[in-house]
């Protein structure tokens, strides 16, 4: 009895795989055609607060030391970097505060010197940038800034960008 049943099953159940294979090939074609590997990209993470008015920083003065001054603006210790651009969008002149620096590598050295001082009052950097400066050139400046370490040991990630008018000259 059981032997007869088994024989019946073997001959009766035959799946037609061709239809399933067709469907599987269609799925495969879809995935092959839509496959676009994501490029490996790097990034520089920043905190970009909107720029605030720059307060004059007095040497060694800490925020809140002056009791007469209740303005929150005065508590901001900001280092200003200016990047003027050529008409072609390259860096023409770089300056920290009022003093010019020779180039991006010189900027790195100057920033290190300024920020490595334990009494350095700066905790934020405003970058004033010529409106024509290309993103590639801007990233060189941002790269230098984000490499710096503040006196409290934290990495400098807090930057603000300000656009210089197109006709501004160094």
């Amino acid at each position, binding site marked *: 009895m059981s032997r007869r049943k088994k024989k019946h099953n073997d001959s009766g159940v035959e799946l037609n795989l061709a239809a*399933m*294979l067709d469907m599987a090939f269609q799925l495969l074609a879809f995935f092959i055609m839509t*496959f676009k590997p994501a*490029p490996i*990209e790097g990034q520089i993470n920043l905190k970009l607060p909107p720029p605030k008015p720059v307060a004059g920083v007095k040497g060694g003065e800490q925020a809140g030391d002056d009791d007469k001054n209740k303005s929150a603006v005065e508590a901001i210790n900001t280092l200003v970097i200016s990047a003027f651009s050529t008409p072609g969008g390259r860096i023409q002149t770089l300056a920290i505060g009022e003093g010019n620096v020779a180039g991006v590598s010189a900027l790195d050295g100057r920033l290190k010197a300024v920020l490595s001082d334990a009494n350095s009052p700066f905790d934020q950097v405003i970058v004033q940038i010529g*409106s024509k400066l290309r993103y590639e050139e801007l990233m060189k400046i941002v790269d230098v800034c984000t490499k710096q370490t503040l006196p409290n040991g934290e990495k400098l990630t807090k930057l603000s*960008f300000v656009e210089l008018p197109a006709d501004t000259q160094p």
Partner: protein
Amino acid sequence: MSGSKSEGEADLTPMLDMVFQLITFFMLVTSFKAASLDLSLRLPVVGSARPVETQGEESLLVLNVNKDGQLIVYSLPQDIVPYLKAEAKMARREAKEKNPRFKDTDDLPTTVVVRADKDTPFGLLNLVIKTCQENGFRKFALKATDRAGS
């Protein structure tokens, strides 16, 4: 006669197995995240730019800015102000769902990923950044590559 018919039928099972394995592979490696990236943009080369893994926990807003200052999202140009306003509204709602104590005046937790062409003038890029800041975005990631041609 019936014997010759059965010999002519190919056994499709191994082929089906292989095709299913290929489908599984492509399903696993396909990432629709790449669709949000405009691959025609030429990113600047910055040595210290490193890929960052967010492990999917952080919400990201990817903005492609071409050299004419146009904002491209999923291959379509968008008006900067209305688009970012809508995104900020959604991000704020999402933040409130995650953290009921989140206030409207708080900074948005979403990271804005800026993918700009290396020739984009700062004036045009700054329009996008300023609009983001006006809408409460503070965390930014500026995209670059670590080698030329990648």
